[in-house]
């Protein structure tokens, strides 16, 4: 059992986790549940990007993509949360 088989098994498991999170995103009772599911999908996609880089042998390009994806996901989460919280506060 080489290391590539372990990477491939990890990739399949992460895709299964992302499908479970998609169930929460489509079903979620509140909009915050959907945002939470999208954040977890983003953090799982970072691992998937790094593993695809190791499998294809071009780690440098995929790592730069993973770094920018993590920073953009964090900024998007903060901005959307601030927007929703401000709207609810003014309504109350």
């Amino acid at each position: 059992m080489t290391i590539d088989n372990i990477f491939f098994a990890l990739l399949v498991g992460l895709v299964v986790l992302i499908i479970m999170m998609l169930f929460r995103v489509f079903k979620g009772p509140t909009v915050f549940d959907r945002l939470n599911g999208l954040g977890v999908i983003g953090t799982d996609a970072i691992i998937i990007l790094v593993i695809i880089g190791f499998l294809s042998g071009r780690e440098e390009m995929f790592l730069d993509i993973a770094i920018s994806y993590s920073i953009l996901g964090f900024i998007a989460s903060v901005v959307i949360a601030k927007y929703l919280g401000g709207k609810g506060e003014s309504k109350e």
Partner: protein
Amino acid sequence: MKILAVIFLALGFFLTAVAAIGILRFPDFYTRMHASGKADTLGVALTLVGLALYEGFSLTSFKILFISAFIMFANPIGTHILVRAAHQSGLKPLTKRRESK
């Protein structure tokens, strides 16, 4: 070193799976954020540390450790700011007193 990397990968994937099951199964929004804030953060960080151990000592492993450190502080901040937004917009947590009323 490879054995240690595989151990870290298995531990990280276990914690990530626990976080996903918790987000699917917990009854309330705040408890679901509890699963997402702690288990998912540590799982992703351990998986990235395992990948860096597999790579060895180079610029690639330094970048992977940078992503791991960034997630270790960005993911709890995102979770906290989301819970704060939900609390400000008037979402009540699930308590036993409200259930019996």
